[in-house]
């Protein structure tokens, strides 16, 4: 076990603020602890404690028997706030319902960067766990002094510390004192047999309000004096507003102001339908210059190969022995652009206060970086912009959330003192959200006489998966088109190798050799950015489809073929579990039906996920019916089993929607996928039965589950369709027209 926790603390006058006892834990007097976070002297702390080291940044013991938990990660419908509340309750030793969470307010919470990349449990969950355990240790130590009882003999139950017939509560203890301590992450964690919350499916804290129409979404905010804004977006990418006669619109009932700045055009009105009408009239009055020579959604794969490429070999382990392969197989796979396609279009409120403070309510995933980008766009100090996260519709990555926040800020600047609510239309969201980037991959394998891989050469072509606000106004749609425009920064293929476009591009199999090359494209055929899984969807689809092709070529069962070259025990475990639950060994083929299996460890370092799928293909229509999907996952230690299941199920359904139906269609005349008819998604009649089994790994790090199942789903589908009808589909999505054509 860990060493006993012996904090040092200073007693001072309490800081009482806003009726709450702010129990501020801060830095003990030691050189190491006072050093900046990046200095080598500072010990490495787990999760986001590394960058937000003071306990007071995370926890407050508040009046009225409450505990306030402050987190930089935000609720996107993934259940993160419930999960971290479970972790806090467990490790601090209080009832779940005593905890009140503040999340994503740039003035109040620790800066945990972007809520993305399945990093909220590893980053935030881990930090909250250790911060809470540290705080409990300090409080127990304090109680030991106060009660005159050895700390080892004290027990904590719901904030009451007791032993040897004496007791005191957290709230009695901290009255009149301020504890100053930095996290150590050395306090022992709650023993597994004593846990009340970690590992239990605690019902989500936000669901009752959502099911009964309580105001919980940013769309539901209606501060006094609120007015409605609408933006007239460009008709096509890179268009320029030449002229617009606003005189008619300005006379419309309810219209307060037309705002034009360069090609940014918006209107503010008293009522929502008035703002919509005014924006429609403005759109008709606007004259635009539009570019002519642009790639289309169908020519993008050729276009990508003709661009100036940033080539990077991210894995370079060619085979040492030079024996010739018995055969060489080379294939290409393609995925199109697809949308986040939130059901609720993006929305934000902004208010310019008398004090010059711009306060923005936003469903952004990156409140701090978006605040900084908006401050840059407005030309004001960052301290003059405050972003407060309020939930929106699920986003699944970088959608219009940040852009609409910038839109609202520009309109609010023109209408000081009035909260301006900007609601994007369905058309705005479909046409202007940044899409998941189309990708092309090419795999060449040399195999031996038994079909085993000797040489594995993987190449991928992709535009950027990362144009989030990132502190730069050039990433905001509005910022790019102002009279004095902010240029779009040249994209970089962010993160370490195997992380963005090349996420999961390195196959997790133990081949004798592997060479992986990324061809990154810094120009754009369509606006693209982070969409659930980034490159992992295309890379796992490609690798796992190709493994299936090789297995069939070698006349080996695809499960067996994978297990031959997969040494990782946790990877093997999910593959075997998914196969077992599917009934892989006893499954019998019938005409028109097929089965497929696929596997990946997300980012090669997070959740392990294997999916087995059964499909039925109608030969005369080309329609694919997915009958069932069986998943097995290992996300490390499980905090909320149902939370992870919900993410895996949802990921499978969303990926089936991408893989069966979705492709953004665009050409020189603009984006044609501008509503749910022209961009259909999976519906109830098309959703299969899904089973998910979790392999819990107590004591192992939290791995995060939100993006684990999409890649394996796409490949399991294509593999099952191949098994059903003997045709290999290498270009997503597998639409009935495409399937029918191949079968005829």
């Amino acid at each position, binding site marked *: 076990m860990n060493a006993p926790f012996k904090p040092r603390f200073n007693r001072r006058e309490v800081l009482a603020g806003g009726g709450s006892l702010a129990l501020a834990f801060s830095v003990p007097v030691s050189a190491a602890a006072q050093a900046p976070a990046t200095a080598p002297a500072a010990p490495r702390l787990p999760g986001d404690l590394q960058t937000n080291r003071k306990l007071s940044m995370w926890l407050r013991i508040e009046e009225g028997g409450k505990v306030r938990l402050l987190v930089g990660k935000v609720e996107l419908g993934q259940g993160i706030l419930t999960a971290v509340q479970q972790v806090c309750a467990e490790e601090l030793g209080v009832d779940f319902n005593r905890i009140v969470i503040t999340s994503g307010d740039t003035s109040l919470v620790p800066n945990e960067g972007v809520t993305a990349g399945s990093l909220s449990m590893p980053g935030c969950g881990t930090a909250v766990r250790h911060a809470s355990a540290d705080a409990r240790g300090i409080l127990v130590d304090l109680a030991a002094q106060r009660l005159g009882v050895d700390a080892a003999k004290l027990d904590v139950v719901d904030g009451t510390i007791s032993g040897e017939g004496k007791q005191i509560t957290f709230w009695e203890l901290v009255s009149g004192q301020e504890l100053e301590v930095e996290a150590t992450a050395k306090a022992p964690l709650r023993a597994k047999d004593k846990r009340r919350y970690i590992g239990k499916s605690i019902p989500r804290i936000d669901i009752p309000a959502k099911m009964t129409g309580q105001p919980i979404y940013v769309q539901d905010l209606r501060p006094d004096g609120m007015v409605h804004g609408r933006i007239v977006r460009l008709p096509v990418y890179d268009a320029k507003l030449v002229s617009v006669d606003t005189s008619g619109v300005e006379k419309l009932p309810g219209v307060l102001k037309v705002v034009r700045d360069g090609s940014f055009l918006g209107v503010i009105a008293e009522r929502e339908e008035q703002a919509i009408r005014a924006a429609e009239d403005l759109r008709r009055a606007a004259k635009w210059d539009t570019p002519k020579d642009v790639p289309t959604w169908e020519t993008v794969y050729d276009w990508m190969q003709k661009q100036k490429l940033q080539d990077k070999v991210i894995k370079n382990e060619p085979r040492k022995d030079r024996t010739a392969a018995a055969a060489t197989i080379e294939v290409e796979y393609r995925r199109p652009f697809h949308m986040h396609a939130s*059901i609720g279009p993006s929305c934000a409120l902004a208010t310019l206060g008398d004090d010059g403070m711009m306060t923005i309510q936003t469903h952004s995933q990156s409140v701090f970086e978006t605040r900084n980008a908006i401050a840059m766009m407005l030309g004001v100090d960052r301290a003059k912009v405050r972003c407060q996260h309020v939930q929106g519709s*699920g986003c699944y990555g970088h959608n219009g959330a940040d852009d609409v926040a910038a839109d609202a800020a520009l309109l609010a600047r023109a209408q000081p003192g009035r909260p301006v609510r900007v609601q994007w239309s369905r058309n705005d969201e479909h046409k202007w959200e940044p899409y998941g980037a189309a990708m092309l991959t090419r795999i060449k394998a040399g195999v031996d006489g038994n079909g085993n891989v000797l040489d594995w050469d993987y190449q991928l072509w992709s535009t950027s998966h990362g144009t989030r606000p990132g502190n730069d106004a050039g990433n905001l749609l509005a910022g790019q088109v102002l009279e004095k425009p902010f240029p779009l920064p040249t994209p970089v293929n962010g993160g370490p190798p195997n992380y963005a476009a090349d996420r999961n591009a390195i196959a997790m199999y133990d081949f004798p050799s592997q060479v992986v090359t990324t061809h990154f494209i810094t120009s754009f055929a369509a606006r693209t950015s982070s969409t659930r899984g980034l490159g992992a969807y295309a890379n796992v689809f490609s690798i796992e489809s190709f493994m299936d092709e090789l297995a069939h070529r070698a006349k080996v069962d695809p499960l067996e073929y994978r297990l031959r070259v997969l040494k990782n025990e946790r990877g093997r475990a999910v593959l075997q579990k998914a196969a077992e639950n599917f009934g892989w060994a006893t499954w019998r083929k019938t005409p028109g039906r097929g089965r497929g299996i696929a596997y990946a460890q997300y980012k090669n370092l997070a959740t392990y996920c294997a999916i087995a799928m059964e499909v039925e293909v109608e030969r005369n229509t080309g329609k694919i019916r997915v009958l069932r999907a069986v998943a097995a996952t290992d996300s490390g230690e499980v905090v909320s089993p149902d939370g992870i299941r919900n993410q895996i199920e949802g990921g499978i*359904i969303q990926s089936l929607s991408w893989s069966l139906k979705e492709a953004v269609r665009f050409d020189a005349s603009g984006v044609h996928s501008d509503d749910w008819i022209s961009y259909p998604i999976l519906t109830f009649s098309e959703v299969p039965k899904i089973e998910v089994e979790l392999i819990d790994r107590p004591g192992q790090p939290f791995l995060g589950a939100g993006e684990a199942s999409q890649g394996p789903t796409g490949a399991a589908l294509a593999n099952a369709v191949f098994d059903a009808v003997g045709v290999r589909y290498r270009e997503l999505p597998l639409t009935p027209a495409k399937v029918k054509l191949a079968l005829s």
Partner: protein
Amino acid sequence: MPVLKVNGQSHNLAVPDDAPLLYVLRNDLKLNGPKFGCGLSQCGACTVLIDGQPVRSCVTQAGAVVGQDITTLEGLGTPDKPHKLQRAFIDEQAAQCGYCANGMIMRAKALLDTTPTPTESEIRVALDGNLCRCGVHQRIISAVMRVSREA
């Protein structure tokens, strides 16, 4: 100036007859249940019941439903006293972001009012025009089945 009967209460509203019902419910009556999703009658997030029938409030003019019984999600139940469908959605944790839930619950209410014990396939057919992006379809079906079983 329409008089609207919403969740059993009459409201004299100073709004134009052609204002979309959705905006009147949300902005004038400050109801949050019905959601703006598309404004095109394509996604179902704005569904309300009008004389018991599921209707897309985003394409319904306020003036067209004067005198009719309009029921929103708030008219079914509250966090303290949820309707059995709301209770079932909570028990099944049938949400991620929850933005589509209004439409799912209101459409399911209309189904159960006419078909108290629907089969799974009847539920799928009834909800097929309501879009969910998070992928909680299976949980939503389970929630409606749960109410069906209890009927």
